[in-house]
């Protein structure tokens, strides 16, 4: 494998190789992996929800129902694509893409493993932007556009209301999320995501345990705000079936609906990935500084593969918690939801930020 890469490197020249071919390859592989993960998250959700509810989930398609996402994709692809008569056509078409696109773009700055020097092979991230954290927050905000446009373009007043409610919920929970993200920034001293991961290694502990209890508080606020951001239970009133309508995606059918659906799961995965990177030590194994546990390094895997495995394991834990929440809690009413966001989460996140800053000043 490295032989092919060095041959390409020599033939194409360093510039093209490092700026075009390598990122393109990584993007392609990452997209395939992420889309598969999204599809199988839907399957895992149905299976795990079933297990939480003492029933088996889907188990007919393939052994233990493993091919169910393929069947779902096939079904959604062949469904009739209905666009309402008086809907604004181009906005209707673009809205789902605006939901999925920004969520996937965030993956370009998340480090899945060490950089080239440490791993000895290549950079285990697509790019290392030195304002990576700001980029993440910005892209998450762009995702709200798709929802508003989807609700408005449907020419249906209930979709519009559902879309507006959804968007209001997402915007109000971005404030505590942003504040909670400032806490690892303060602890690490850099906005770059790779820098934050390295800082957790240097400081010898994950940021979730740092500056107790502010790290834990920030982690908790970030995760709960993340659940609200992706419109999941217990904050999923805008898309609940037993409420007025199905929210902003009522008029969408077939693959467009599938894109909205994918966008929600992509959001889930992105929020989990960012939480893992910022609070749980990214791709490091637990107790990365302790030499005695170096067997956890999974050295038998080539290159920096073990770091990718650890990253994925932590990510899967978060996804399980998302599904667990869905299976357990009732739903908040919309005004109670907004109450919670503005009256409780923002003061709590402010406390976390000021507490961390205070501790940092005192320690310096």
């Amino acid at each position, binding site marked *: 494998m490295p032989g092919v890469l060095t041959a390409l490197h020599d033939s194409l020249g360093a510039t093209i190789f490092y700026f075009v071919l390598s990122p393109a390859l990584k993007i392609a592989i990452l997209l395939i992996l992420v889309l598969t993960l999204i599809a199988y998250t839907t399957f895992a959700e149905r299976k795990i929800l079933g*297990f939480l509810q*003492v*029933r*088996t989930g889907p188990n007919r398609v393939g052994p233990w129902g493993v091919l169910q996402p393929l069947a779902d994709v096939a079904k959604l692809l062949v469904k009739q694509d209905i666009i309402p008569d008086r809907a604004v056509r181009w906005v209707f078409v673009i809205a789902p893409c605006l939901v999925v696109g920004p969520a996937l773009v965030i993956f370009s700055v998340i480090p899945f493993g060490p950089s080239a020097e440490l791993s000895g092979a290549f950079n285990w991230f697509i790019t290392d932007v030195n304002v990576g954290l700001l980029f993440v927050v910005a892209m998450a905000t762009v995702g709200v556009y798709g929802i508003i446009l989807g609700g408005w373009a449907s020419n249906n007043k209930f979709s519009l209301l559902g879309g507006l409610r959804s968007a209001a919920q997402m915007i109000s929970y971005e404030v505590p999320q942003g504040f909670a993200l400032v806490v690892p920034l303060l602890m690490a001293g850099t906005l770059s995501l790779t820098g934050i991961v390295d800082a957790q290694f240097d400081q010898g502990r994950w940021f979730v345990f740092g500056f107790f209890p502010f790290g834990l508080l920030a982690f908790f606020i970030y995760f709960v705000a993340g659940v609200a951001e992706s419109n999941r239970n217990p904050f999923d009133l805008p898309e609940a079936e037993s409420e007025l309508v199905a929210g902003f995606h009522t008029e969408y059918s077939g693959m467009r609906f599938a894109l909205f659906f994918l966008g929600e799961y992509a959001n889930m995965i992105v929020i989990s990935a960012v939480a893992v990177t910022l609070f749980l030590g990214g791709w490091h194994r637990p107790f990365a500084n302790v030499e005695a546990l170096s067997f956890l390094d999974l050295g038998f895997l080539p290159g920096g593969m073990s770091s990718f495995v650890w990253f994925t394991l932590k990510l899967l834990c978060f996804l399980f918690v998302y599904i667990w929440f869905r299976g357990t809690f009732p739903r908040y009413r919309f005004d109670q939801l907004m109450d919670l966001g503005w009256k409780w989460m923002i003061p709590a996140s402010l406390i976390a930020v000021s507490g961390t800053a205070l501790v940092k000043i005192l320690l310096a």
Partner: protein
Amino acid sequence: MKRFLDKIMLLDLFAGLGITFKHLWKRKVTIQYPEERMEPAHRFRGMFRLDEDRCIKCTLCARDCPIDIIYIDWHQEVNPETEKKEKLLDRFDIDVQRCMFCGLCEEACPTKPKSIWLTTKTYELASYERWENLYVDMEELEGWRVRPEYTDEEVA
């Protein structure tokens, strides 16, 4: 103080999470139909069967039906073998579209063992054609055997 800590630490939410987590490991209650089926009880009121030999054509079942869906016609004839008058059944039709499987016809039947009984333990009455199984006449009633694993003795 404890209630304050309860509120802050969200203990009630974690208790709920714990309960659902425990259920992850419990045995699932799903029955994989159609490979496994639930066995109906002995008294289960399913589709009925008629046994014409036992029937004495008293029409009590037709009279007792709450929805009047049993249609019985009989006439008297002299049996050439025994030289006695006896009743012969012309028509014994049941309109299954309306039947609610209440069992009153079975209760009304005075013969022992009963001539019409509902314990064939059949509840899968779906059919592929529109004219099947909606209006069941005498021959079909007698020959109803959808659950071949049960013998007549078990079923009656």
